[in-house]
């Protein structure tokens, strides 16, 4: 390998990942904003790399690496964009870059399922409910609940990553890189909401491939409808409800379908299984019981099957997070952040920490007593 030179794209990426403005980075390095602009423009061959390493927390090798795989914001199906600043968005986009690099590394070293998603982007007037029913049929789900949606997606070649804790302004987002589908999740939410987010993003991947980035209310609504139909199929619910429901029945049904109580009541009303009056009354009741903001008595979070198996193989093969990070020229914290909540879950409640544990750390000595690997 020859002498590697400074890559200004990498500097921009590291700055954005940190959520820094150019001015802030300039202040940290003791230079002018204009100097930082010049570094990032490639006008300077030899910026003060040591200062950048210190200020940005990225290894020296990172700044000397090839151009990273960049995903444009236009190719991403984002939600909650309107409430985000450009800086927040750039920080999250930088995460996707590292996820792509990690994904490539996984592909080079291990065999994983190839993408196997049907294309529902044509015809463009395909109803989301019909698409969801078709997918249920293709995946052999028919009228049964989707037990574990995350592993099901992974089995069909969807790469699912976690949004780092500090980047949870968005619910979830998804995109295609060539033929590979990706979903990024906010794993800080309830297990039921995460499942719904997964189904929502799956809708974008399946149905909106041609129009991704064209954020519109109707596309979002279609994705919601798809998710609702995928997780709670109408015909099964029709057959299941044999009487006049009471709110107590909702809890039984939502546990069966593994969805939130609010999502289930919404579905019942949408299918006219309950009256508009019941819908309003029950929503108020659920809100008073805390079901709007959380999910009392909810299900356990789903775990990534891919990462669980991968971590086992990595340990067997002698890989550490730092070694992988070193291969990718990124900080280990970036890797841990991308799988946090998927392969490593925070134990409930009071042990929350802003730090993410090392996914390949010796599990006999967990650094955070309240953190546990999801079984």
């Amino acid at each position, binding site marked *: 390998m020859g002498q590697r030179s400074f890559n200004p794209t990498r500097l921009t990426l590291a700055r954005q990942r940190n959520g820094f403005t150019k001015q802030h980075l300039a202040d940290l390095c003791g230079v002018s904003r204009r100097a930082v602009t010049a570094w990032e423009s490639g006008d300077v061959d030899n910026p003060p790399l040591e200062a950048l390493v210190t200020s940005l927390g990225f290894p020296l090798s990172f700044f000397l690496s090839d151009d990273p795989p960049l995903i444009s914001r236009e190719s991403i199906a984002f939600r909650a964009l309107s409430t985000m600043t450009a800086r927040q968005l750039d920080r999250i986009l930088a995460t996707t870059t590292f996820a792509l690099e990690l994904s490539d590394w996984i592909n080079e070293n291990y065999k994983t399922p190839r993408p196997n998603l049907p294309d529902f982007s044509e015809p463009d007037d395909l109803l989301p409910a019909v698409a969801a029913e078709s997918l249920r049929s293709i995946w052999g789900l028919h009228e049964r609940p989707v037990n574990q949606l995350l*592993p099901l997606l992974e*089995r069909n070649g969807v790469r699912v990553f976690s949004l780092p804790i500090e980047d949870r302004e968005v619910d979830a987002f998804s995109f295609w890189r060539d033929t590979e589908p990706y979903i990024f999740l906010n794993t800080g939410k309830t297990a039921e909401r995460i499942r719904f987010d997964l189904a929502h993003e799956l809708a974008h991947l399946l149905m909106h491939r041609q129009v991704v980035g064209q954020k519109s209310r109707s596309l979002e609504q279609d994705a919601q409808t798809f998710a609702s139909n995928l997780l709670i199929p109408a015909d099964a619910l029709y057959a299941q409800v044999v009487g006049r429901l009471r709110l107590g029945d909702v809890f039984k049904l939502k546990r069966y379908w593994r969805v939130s109580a609010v999502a289930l009541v919404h579905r019942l009303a949408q299918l006219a299984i309950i009256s508009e009056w019941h819908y309003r009354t029950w929503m108020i009741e659920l809100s008073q019981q805390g079901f709007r903001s959380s999910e009392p008595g909810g299900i356990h979070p789903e775990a990534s099957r891919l990462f669980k198996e991968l971590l086992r193989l990595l340990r067997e093969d002698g890989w550490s997070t730092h070694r992988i990070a070193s291969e990718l020229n990124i900080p280990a914290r970036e890797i841990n952040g991308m799988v946090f909540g998927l392969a490593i879950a925070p134990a409930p409640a009071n042990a929350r920490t802003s730090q993410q544990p090392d996914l390949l750390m010796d599990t006999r000595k967990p650094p955070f007593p309240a953190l546990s690997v999801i079984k």
Partner: protein
Amino acid sequence: MVQPADHQVEVVRVVPPDDAAEHLKDFGLTVEMLHRSIEAGDNKRNQVSQEYYPLTYRGVVMWAETLAELRRQLLKISDGYEIGRTANYETIYCVKRNVALAVVAGDSMVGTKGSRDPRLTRKRGIKTTERVTRNARYIYQQGELFPLPKNKEIPEDETCLTWFLMVRPTSKEVRLELSWPLSIDDDGLVGGWQKRILLPPVAISGATAPVNPDDYLDDGNDNIVSR
């Protein structure tokens, strides 16, 4: 034969639920048979209680399915019971026991010994009035030792005394009693009862079908990552 114990016109006699089984023997009935009938009606009623169905349909279904199951139960025991529907008045009757059973809907006092007797929920027609009047005539004539003549032109089911299996669904249970109506008031509702056999209520049916544990089988166990 089912009749007042002393053949006299007497005040309403209310049999508490705990004693119901003993009194039902006069009909060849058990509490379980009545409960099964109510459950059949309630289950079907629930199935048609969703928004898609006409509102009045659920009551019709409950009445029809309860009566149908009651008929099945009584025909099954081969005790002389037959289906009665003379003049479209639907009963299950037994000449030997001199009883015809009809299913009717009652008000909130059904199944309880409260401050007043229960009433039917809607004004009854001429056929019900005839039946109840016949009940009254029977009682009074029995008291005066003038038995009801067995007119051969009267269909068998109409010669029998008519008892009501009276039903009242609430949000939690279906209340019921087997009662002998004695008079119809001017408003067309039953105004008096000769005897009321209160029965234990039936818990209302679940609104959701049972869960099949095999429903959660979408995960394969084969590994998805390999070297």
